[in-house]
Structures are given as structure tokens and as C-alpha cells.
């Protein structure tokens, strides 16, 4: 059986093709202005990568903050359910899933089947989400993908006072002017952001194994900062963490086909 999972996020739209329990194709495009187009494009690209046509699909699972606007909706999958099922697919031992995307951070406790038992979402404040590091990378004039590796080279932990993205930007500018090294500022940024998501995670309790998914999980500096803050030996990250929710949506589509 072949199913597709599409996750329409605020940053990117991701699509995954699942065939008999195996990922055979995936693709992502910028969500941008036109969500319907982003969804069509990502699906077409993923189908091409898998070497199948749309007519071969049994079902399409949808998730992400943009699903309400999408016209071709078939099976709607709750975002928390998609993240749990996706994490379970990648790491069957996962019990805590942390999803950090462009604008939202959330955490879920899941069972051995990937079903959600409890979850917490931070959707009131962007301080614990990807946009935080994005904004700071612009202020530091350092490419986003270099922010994490740079933070890992710092041996100094300096506190950041500001919690808000908007204020933290001014604080970072102040630190630059006071001559603080960029690697130390970068570490401070990652630690501040980790502190925010960790308080969301603690609301549901921490059970190992912990898996981090979402676009921000590509950032090793952030994963390390969360690991340190939670005092864990390890945090698992799927090979392509941004796709995890789309994988989960495809899994649910297969279960309910």
C-alpha cells in the first residue's frame, strides 16, 4: 500500500511517500504565499522521487498549521498525533517527542505505538521556536546553518536577560557592540531558547528515549543545549527531522486506509 503524508508548516511544506512501511520519496518546498501550490508542488516532487503517480496513492494524510486553507484535504491528521506517529516510526523506543518548528514548539509523551498520552504546546510566545535563532542569526550576520556549530565551540556561558524575540535582538546587538565574541553570543542564544522549550517539555515530564524533530533539530547547538538543560545522556534526532510529522501523517493514512 502506498500513502502520502503532507505537513504544511509556517516555514516549509514537506511531503513523504510511504510504501509498505518504508519511505520511498520525500520533498519540501517553501510554503510562501500560496499554500495550495506549496502542497501540490511538494506532493508532485515527492511522488517523482518515489517513482509513482498520484493514482497509486491509497490515501493522503494532512497535517500542519496551514491545513485549514488547503483545498485538496483528504484525511486530516492532528499535528500532535502526526509528530507522535512520525517519531515512533523513526525510533520505536521514543517516549518523549519534542517538535521545534519555525514558530511553535511542542512536546508530547507517547506510548510504544506512537499514540499520544499527553502533550504541551507553546503557541503564545515565539521565544522557544526557530524564528528566534533566525532573527538572531541576522543580527549576528552569521548564516543560520553555522549558528549551531559556532555555539558548540564556545566554552563560556553568558546569560541572556531578554526572553522575547524582539527584545533579544536588541540585546544581541548590545553584546556585539560591547565586544562579546560571536561564538559566546551564539551559545547564549541557544541556551536561552533551549530554556524556553525545556519548560514546555517539563510540563509533560521527561521519559527516555527523547526524540527531537522539526526543522530546528538540524541545529546541533540547539540539540546540545536542550540535552544539557535536561541533563540527558542523549537526544535522538531522525536523519531528516523536518519530515517527521509528514512521515507520521503518511503512517496514519496507511493505518486508516
Amino acid at each position, binding site marked *: 500500500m502506498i500513502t502520502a503524508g503532507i505537513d504544511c508548516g509556517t516555514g516549509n511544506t514537506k511531503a513523504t511517500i510511504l510504501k509498505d512501511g518504508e519511505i520511498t520519496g520525500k520533498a519540501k518546498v517553501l510554503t510562501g504565499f500560496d499554500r495550495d501550490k506549496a502542497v501540490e508542488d511538494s506532493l508532485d516532487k515527492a511522488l517523482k522521487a518515489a517513482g509513482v503517480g498520484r493514482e497509486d496513492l491509497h490515501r493522503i494524510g494532512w497535517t500542519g498549521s496551514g491545513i485549514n486553507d488547503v483545498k485538496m484535504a483528504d484525511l486530516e491528521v492532528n499535528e500532535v498525533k502526526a509528530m507522535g506517529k512520525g517519531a515512533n516510526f523513526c525510533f520505536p523506543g521514543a517516549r518523549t517527542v519534542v517538535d521545534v518548528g519555525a514558530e511553535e514548539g511542542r512536546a508530547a509523551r507517547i506510548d510504544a505505538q506512537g499514540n499520544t498520552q499527553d502533550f504541551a504546546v507553546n503557541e503564545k*510566545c515565539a521565544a522557544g521556536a526557530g524564528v528566534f535563532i533566525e532573527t538572531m542569526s541576522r543580527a549576528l550576520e552569521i548564516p543560520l546553518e553555522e549558528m549551531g556549530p559556532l555555539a558548540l565551540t564556545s566554552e563560556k556561558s553568558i546569560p541572556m536577560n531578554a526572553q522575547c*524575540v*524582539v*527584545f533579544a535582538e*536588541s540585546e544581541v546587538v548590545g553584546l556585539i*557592540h*560591547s565586544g562579546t565574541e560571536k561564538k559566546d553570543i551564539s551559545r547564549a542564544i541557544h541556551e536561552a531558547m533551549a530554556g524556553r522549550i525545556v519548560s514546555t517539555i517539563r510540563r509533560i515530564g521527561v521519559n527516555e528515549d527523547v526524540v527531537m524533530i522539526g526543522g530546528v533539530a538540524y541545529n546541533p547547538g540547539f540539540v546540545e543545549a536542550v540535552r544539557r538543560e535536561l541533563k540527558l545522556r542523549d537526544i535522538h534526532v531522525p536523519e531528516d527531522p523536518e519530515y517527521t510529522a509528514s512521515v507520521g501523517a503518511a503512517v496514519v493514512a496507511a493505518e486508516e486506509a
Partner: protein
Amino acid sequence: MNEGQAGEFWRWPESNWKDPDVNWREARFITGGIDVGSVSSQAVIMADGRIMAYGNMRTGPDGPGSARNALSFALDDLGDMPEDRMDYLVGTGYGRVNIPMADRSVTEIACHARGAGYIYGPGVRTVLDVGGQDIKAITCDERGKVVNFLMNDKCAAGTGRGVEVFSDLLGVPVQEVGERSFQVKEEPEAVSATCVVYAKTEAQELLRAGGSVEEALAAYCRATAERIFAILDKLGVTAGFAVTGGMAKNRGVIDRLMPMVGLEFMKTEWDTQIAGAAGAALFGHALCLKGKKRRK
């Protein structure tokens, strides 16, 4: 949007002013107040408790430098008055611990209450100060002494910085935000997001759905007013309501806030951004009357 221009819409005009009727040579005590805020810095020079000059400018990257610049900007107007003629200098604001030339520092809560009484007159009982980075609601007695206060400085929602972010996003000069926000056929709902980052996304969606820039501004001004009102409501307000800080100049927020509060707001001819520095200079004057002198 033109890239070179982007990011400059927030820039508001700096200003300085001098009272031509006050002669510093005739003054017994000359005192200064410097308010270094997160976004703007002001210096007020008083002759015997009366404002004779002030300067209002953008806070730069370093606190001491911003204090120095604001003071020089105010002194510029006084022409021949030497700086060491000043009898006492009080620092206040977010950067008050970092003003090397100040003789002492006083909290901005106390200074705003005191300063509001000067720029709005003695009837002030509730002061709302909305600056770049925080919202302060203060109740005070007839002498301008603080009775109670509430403050938000954790989140940019409802602050001047939030409005600056919006003026950049929509490409509208920050001084025009208020006027433009009333150029709508029908008042839209407030943006629902508290966080400025989410409010930006929401405003973009509003534009995407065919809404006008003015509607987005109206929706944001309304949200800002609601955010500010939440703090006022918690504190409880009384008549004699004065608004200080940069937000007092934004009609788009103030005119939407007034019906929520249900009180007539007091009026002033003074620049509302100088209230904190004026309060600081008044504290300096009171200290001079008690015999305090500059550490020279």
C-alpha cells in the same frame, strides 16, 4: 519593498527644545535628569524646578554614550551654559546604573509618576507609561508619590518596539501609524496573537486575504490597546489619567484605549517622552533644596 529602505520606517525624529524665557544665570539651582531607555534617551535641564531645555534621541548601543549624547543635545540649546554649572544630575530608566556622570539614580517608576505631575499638572493620579520595551501602570498621590504599580517588561506585545516592528513590516513611517490606522471602512478585529512575531504572521495573512495595510494597522493598534488595557485593568485606574512615553503620541492606540478605560485622558503640550527625565530633574531639585551638591 525597496531593500535599501526596508528597516528604516521605525525611525522617529529626534528633537531638542529650549525655553527662551528662562535665563540660566538667574537660577539658584540648575538640575538635570537623564532617562536612558531601551529605545530612546532623554535629558531635561531645569532651572529651579522649571524645564528650560531638553533633548530626546534614539538610544545607541552603549548606555553611557547615549546618556552623554542626550545631555549634550539638551545643552546644545543653552549655548553658553557650561556643563559644570549644573548643581545636581539624576539618572533614571532602564540604563540608569550605567550613567557615569549622574550623582545618583532614581527608579523610572518614581520618576515617571513625578514627571507626569509636571507635564500634565498636579491632578495626575494614574500614569500609564508605554515606552520602547515596557508598559508601566502607576497610581500616585497628589504629591506625585507612587502608591502602586504594575509593569510588563518580558514581552514586546503592547510596547513601542512592537509598533516599530509593524511599521517596518508594513512600510509605514512610525509617526503615521496612528492616522493611517483610522483610514478603514470598518474597524477590523484585533489580531489575536499576543506575541509580536505571531502578530506579524497574522498581519501577513490578513494582507494575503486581500486586506489593506490600513486594516492591518488598525488590527494591530487595537491589539496593542487591548494588551495595555489588560495591565491597567489589573492595577485599577482612577480619574486624573495621564499617558507618558512614546506610545502617547500614537492616536491609533490611545483613541482605541480610551473607551476601554472609560475615562477622559489628560492633555499636555509637552513631549510625552520626557516625563521620566523631567521627574529625575525634579528629584535633583528637591535634593538641592536639602543641601545636596554635585560630586565634582
